[in-house]
């Protein structure tokens, strides 16, 4: 057939055949173009809205603008926490193929120390996927310039200007202030729970403890947003719109940083805690826990060795002893016991007991620390000389339920509600507490003998220094109990409006005025002629106090000699006080761990604090300290 077609050699038929094929080709071309037009119609008309959205999503990116964190100042306006701007070198791991090679290369341009790498690795482990992470912080201008010149070598690496938190006073007041650090997974969950996720887009630090943590949402501010047009490489090309961030609110604390500093120095290298409260408001003037730490270490990711040191030190510098340390109050418990006796009618001020130096109960001897006893002891003398026998008897007469009821009213054994997270409740002993605390029935029973040592602040008694300070302030304040607090007022960054943390009494205890006066008078006596007379000799004001010594472990009848006992096993020294006695401006509780007698180590600290706060006097050593440093 082929042969026939060709051999026909009929040009006209051949041409017709060819033209037919050309016509067919034309039809095919039309059909193909119709397909193309249909496809384009589908994309550009039918799916136009969808693709418009996709194109907009492509080009528009919402960039969060992190607000400035609120500033924290003390009651006199001294800055405790502020922000400064610094350059960081950051890597976005998702945009980098070979992290190790990139870091290696960066090391040739800018100094990258092993600790920087270590920190980067740690951040990498806990980071979100598309985050940029700092490999170096606080770049110098020269380093920024050097990187800029080599920038093209490092895709996915950029220099960012970031705000850093700074605590100008360093370790002073660190347990009250707390610190901020990078947001971790737990923080993320908290933020989600509080429905703050949108506001925290772009934020990478958060308060981890103290005021920084408690007032996080006040300090943070509102994140602003900038709509930027980005190109395919993710670079911002131009800004489309912007909503400005709102700076975080500023906090003014009740804390007096000078007093705080002075008090911390007074502890020297001893472990302990001090809480000083303004009785009329509950405002905390000083909140000391030693040893302290430098919160600045945490801000751009704490170094591993610093962290290990803080965590493994036997002195536990990260422990806030003022709120989390629970100690037996020892003899500082006596004024409260005495007041309970008066209020419950178990004693009158003049009612005296005869103290043989020992109290026998159920075949057990409870000894007074003075051999042979104090003789005839009335209430005044019982406090001034700290007579144990008086309180053994009193406790026995009152019974545990009455003691627990009275002390509970004073806030013992409950969280004070201070504006710092993680406070310990301590232990207010009672039969109910014991039944809850122990599992075995034979342990759950309260023995009458256990009540006896409760009277002198030992036994199951276990309170935090802030509870002790709160109770002391309540006596100073004639029974009006305030919630201790650190923040005086919050200043709204937009309106400048101040929100006072109102000093609202939590409770007004229905104590008789004359009963309180008896206790106060006795406590004044303590500082004039009693156990702490030496510490307060020559003070230019009248103060009231009570020393205390809390046993760290029981010395089963043997005589206690501080020098013969290892330091960690020595007694804790305590002291509570307020001044001036007639119109108290400051009330405090001091604890020195393993400090021995309260009169010896704790009372002098209180004296220094009072001298400074009431008279503006610096302790002898500290007064010339500036000069010493000059030399």
């Amino acid at each position, binding site marked *: *057939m*082929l*042969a026939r*077609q*060709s*051999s026909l*050699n009929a040009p006209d038929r*051949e*041409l017709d*055949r*060819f*033209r037919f*094929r*050309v*016509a067919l*080709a*034309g039809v095919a*071309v*039309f059909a*193909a*173009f119709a*397909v*193309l*037009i249909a*496809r*384009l*119609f589908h*994309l*550009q*008309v039918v*799916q*136009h809205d*969808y*693709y*418009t959205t*996709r*194109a907009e999503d*492509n*080009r528009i990116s919402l960039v969060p603008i992190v607000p400035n964190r609120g500033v924290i100042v003390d009651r006199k306006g001294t800055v405790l926490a502020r922000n400064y701007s610094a350059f960081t070198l950051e890597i976005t791991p998702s945009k980098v193929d070979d992290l190790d090679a990139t870091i290696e290369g960066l090391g040739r341009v800018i100094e990258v120390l092993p600790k920087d790498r270590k920190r980067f690795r740690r951040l990498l482990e806990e980071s979100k996927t598309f985050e940029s992470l700092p490999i170096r912080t606080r770049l110098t201008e020269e380093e920024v310039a050097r990187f800029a010149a080599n920038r093209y070598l490092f895709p996915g690496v950029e220099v960012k200007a970031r705000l850093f938190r700074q605590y100008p006073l360093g370790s002073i007041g660190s347990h009250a202030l707390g610190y901020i650090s990078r947001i971790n997974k737990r923080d993320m969950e908290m933020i989600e729970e509080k429905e703050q996720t949108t506001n925290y887009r772009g934020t990478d630090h958060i308060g981890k403890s103290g005021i920084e943590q408690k007032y996080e949402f006040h300090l943070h501010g509102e994140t602003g947003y900038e709509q930027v*047009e*980005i*190109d*395919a*490489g993710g670079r911002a*090309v131009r800004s489309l719109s912007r909503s400005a961030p709102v700076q975080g609110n500023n906090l003014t604390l009740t804390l007096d940083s000078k007093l705080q500093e002075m008090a911390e120095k007074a502890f020297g290298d001893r472990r302990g805690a001090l809480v000083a409260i303004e009785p009329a408001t509950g405002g905390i003037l000083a909140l000391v826990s030693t040893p302290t730490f430098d919160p600045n270490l945490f801000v751009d990711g704490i170094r591993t060795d610093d962290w290990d040191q803080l965590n493994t030190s036997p002195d536990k510098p990260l422990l806030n002893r003022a709120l989390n340390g629970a100690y037996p109050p020892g003899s500082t418990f006596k004024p409260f016991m005495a007041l309970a006796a008066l209020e419950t009618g178990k004693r009158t001020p003049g009612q005296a007991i005869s103290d043989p130096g020992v109290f026998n109960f159920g075949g057990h001897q409870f000894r007074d620390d003075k051999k042979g006893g104090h003789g005839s002891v009335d209430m005044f003398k019982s406090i001034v000389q700290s007579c144990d026998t008086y309180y053994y008897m009193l406790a026995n007469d009152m019974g545990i339920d009455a003691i627990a009821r009275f002390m509970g009213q004073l806030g013992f054994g409950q969280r004070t509600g201070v504006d710092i997270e993680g406070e310990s409740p301590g232990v207010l002993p009672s039969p109910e507490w014991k039944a809850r605390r122990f599992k075995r029935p034979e342990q759950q029973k309260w023995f009458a003998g256990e009540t006896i040592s409760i009277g002198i602040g030992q036994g199951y008694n276990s309170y935090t220094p802030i509870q002790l300070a709160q109770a002391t302030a309540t006596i100073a304040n004639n029974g009006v109990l305030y919630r201790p607090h650190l923040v005086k007022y919050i200043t709204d960054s937009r309106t400048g409006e101040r929100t006072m943390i109102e000093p609202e009494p939590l409770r007004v205890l229905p104590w008789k005025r004359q009963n309180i006066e008896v206790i106060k008078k006795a406590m004044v006596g303590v500082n004039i002629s009693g156990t702490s007379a030496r510490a307060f000799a020559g003070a230019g004001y009248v103060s009231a106090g009570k020393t205390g010594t809390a046993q760290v472990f029981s010395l089963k009848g043997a005589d206690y000699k501080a020098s013969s006992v290892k330091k960690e096993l020595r007694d804790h020294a305590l002291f509570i006080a307020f001044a001036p006695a007639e119109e108290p401006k400051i009330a405090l509780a001091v604890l020195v761990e393993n400090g021995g007698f309260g009169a010896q180590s704790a009372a002098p600290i209180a004296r220094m604090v009072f001298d400074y706060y009431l008279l503006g006097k610096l302790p002898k050593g500290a007064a010339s300290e500036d000069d010493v440093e000059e030399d």
Partner: protein
Amino acid sequence: MAQQFLHRARVRLVEHIDGPLLFITLALMATGLTTVYSATYDANSRLLAQAVNMAVGLCVMWTVAQLPPQKLMRFGVPLYVLGIILLLLVFLVGVRVNGATRWLSLGFTRIQPSELLKVAVPLMLAWYFHKHEAVLKLRHYVVACLLLLLPFALIAKQPDLGTAILVGAAGFYVIFFAGLPWQVIAGLGAAAAGAAPFVWTMLHDYQRKRILTLIDPTSDPLGAGYHIIQSTIAIGSGGSFGKGWLAGTQTHLEFIPERHTDFIFAVYSEERGLLGNGILLLLYLLLIGRGLMIAANASTLFARVMAGSVTLSLFTYVFVNVGMVSGILPVVGVPLPFMSYGGTAIVTLSVCIGILMSIQTHRMLVRK
């Protein structure tokens, strides 16, 4: 005297130019230049370079148009042989770029011999059929197929699927217009369908990926699918009337890859919309229509099959490119005629238009 000379010069200048073809070509070139300007907004040296390419293209077109078909026919064998030799050289000593060996280094510059075959193969085959016009038998078709398969295989091997398809198509169109029997076409079609699985196994990984990507671009949104996703977004967001010249966000924010070369249609489409696309496709349709007319009216077998092949080649360029950019064909490197940036393509296409003009104008002279 002078007037007469000028007149003669004018005649000489335009006598072998086909008005409609020239007009359409110039319209396409103008559209192409404005689009290249938009696509390379940040590097406008490209615009000048493309204008130069087009000027060179027009000169080549004019020159080719002056050559009568009989003379063109004589280029068939030498160009084909030269092309094959160069392809073999590429195969042996070619320069490897991005995993493909397509170039020959001449020291001062590099050339891509496969481009030559786009013209040489149809010329050769058209010459071959023309020579055996009177005695065409099945074996002539077989020989023609072999003549086509050799360069096709060499180019596909490089690998350069886009060019291989264009060369293969150009050759096939010649064979088709030369009267390849329908039974054979049907048989070949069936065979092709049967061979598809084997071809699949012979494809390179990246080629397979491109085909799979076409079926589901989102399967690899940052890799092979990225081109298609971004170009369809560009086209779709262009809507009915487009975002306006120089206002395409996908283009100017660099989301469209290869936006001044293979993917220039996405740029044009984003900024001109469906209306612009309609006009552009109409221009191509007119060009192809004019070409088919020229083929239908051509006086010799060589002229007929040559004109038909060249015209359908132009169609193939357009269809494969627009199909690829709009996401209905796999991604292969085929430029959009007179729109895509690149001197080689412009010159090759100009030769094609020149051939059409030569066939058209010399036929008329013959008739006169």
